[in-house]
């Protein structure tokens, strides 16, 4: 079976010369939920931008469900990879929730009744259907993030990529978002440094550090390896411990 996402030997330097990625290899199977952990400046956002061709690889390849990211395949790649940005105000740029969720599928040529249905389905899945005709800036931060998830779900992506989904959320919104993410049956790659959130949602974790994948394994194992975490500037919240293997 082809992987949902396959990245091999991906390297990238910004135009100013900053080398952000030094050869990233990773493979995510269909239906997996994977956390991408890493300290600030590790290159997480840079990697994410490669997944749908916003940045083009200096070296190496990215392919989504077998389709390589390349100039000619951009529209299809962007349908397959649903990117949820860190700040929902960047993601929600249309005057109403309905128009915002419709924006992606409309760009793919979906029109009329089918478009409306997709919008409703996507909002239903994140529990925001009742906000359909409201302007995004009248919603709470947590609600905006859920709508941001809906905007990419409406494109029926192969893989959902979230950049810091739990940042700035209060505990209740954080839990609600977790429930939503767990209820979706899509492949998820979640970028975060919220380690408990990764443990809660993802069976597998990767550590990106210094522009390479430094660790790859079951989340529980990675989070119980204090030495590994410390080596990559990752810390569990005060008082939080993860037992290796056995239930806690």
């Amino acid at each position: 079976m082809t992987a949902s996402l396959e990245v091999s030997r991906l390297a990238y330097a910004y135009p100013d010369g900053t080398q952000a990625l030094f050869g990233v290899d990773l493979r995510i199977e269909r239906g997996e939920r994977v956390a991408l952990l890493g300290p600030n400046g590790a290159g997480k956002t840079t990697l994410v931008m490669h997944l749908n061709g916003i940045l083009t690889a200096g070296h190496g390849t990215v392919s989504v469900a077998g389709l390589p990211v390349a100039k000619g395949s951009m529209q299809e790649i962007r349908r397959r990879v649903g990117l949820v940005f860190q700040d929902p105000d960047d993601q929600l740029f249309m005057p109403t929730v309905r128009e915002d969720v419709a924006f992606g599928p409309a760009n793919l040529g979906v029109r009329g009744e089918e478009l409306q249905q997709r919008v409703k389905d996507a909002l239903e899945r994140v529990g925001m259907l009742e906000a359909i005709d409201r302007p995004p800036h009248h919603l709470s931060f947590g609600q905006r993030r859920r709508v941001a998830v809906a905007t990419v779900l409406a494109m029926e992506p192969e893989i959902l990529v979230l950049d810091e989904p739990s940042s700035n959320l209060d505990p209740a919104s954080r839990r609600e978002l977790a429930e939503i993410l767990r209820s979706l049956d899509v492949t998820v790659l979640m970028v975060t440094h919220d380690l408990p959130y990764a443990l809660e949602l993802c069976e597998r974790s990767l550590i990106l550090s210094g522009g390479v994948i430094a660790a790859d394994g079951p989340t529980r194992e990675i989070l119980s390896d204090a030495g590994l975490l410390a080596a990559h500037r990752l810390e569990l919240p005060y008082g939080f411990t993860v037992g290796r293997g056995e239930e806690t």
Partner: protein
Amino acid sequence: MGAGHHHQLYRAGDTLVHRLPPQCKLAAVAAFAMAVVATPREWFAAFGTYALLLAGVVLLARIPPGFVLRRMAIEIPFVVFALAIPFVGTGERVSPLGLSLSLPGLWAAWNILAKATLGVVASIVLAATTEPRLMLLGAQRLRLPPMLVQIAMFMLRYLDVIMDEMRRMRVARESRGFTARDVRHIPVIARSAGALFIRSYERGERVHLAMLSRGYTGSMPVIQDLTASARQWLLAGTLPGAALAVLLGTALFGTGGVGA
């Protein structure tokens, strides 16, 4: 958040006028304004009829007259300007109540006031019955330059966000003991404005990335189909149609007013 200050022109309702597609209303108001501007200033009766026509639309849209009057405040600078003309104007002079006023100046003032007032009221009615975003969709349908329409769309969406950022920056300044009192503080305000510009610019870049990520290729996709029926166009055409009839009728039969 400074939610909705710029939406207060709109007044929700479900009347015939509210339901008309926005492009019909936009075109109607533009045509009406052209008829008003084309009317010679001496045709008092014609202006009177235009005012009655607008009053009819206000009634039909169930907009309280006070709502329109309060929003007419936007016209005050023009009124002040117009009122000054008879005092500073040249030419033949008249002196009612012991004031020395220029006659051509009086005509010029009347011309500006009458036409501006009609135009402003028509625009207020349009804005009161059309949601801002629909107005923009209407403009898009009328093939106004897409770049301008998109810019306006983003302004509509991000005005609150930017106002909020501005407010946060002011709070940050003031919580460090700064309050703008006199001209010496202008450089500080200017630096804040610069920072705000950079922030907004960076946001613009991020929004652009978000748009690209969802398949944007340079033009806004059609999301809401706003086709207008011939009946709706006809209905919207009533206002400019009637104004045009008055204009042409007066031109042909000369029942306009003192000067005709």
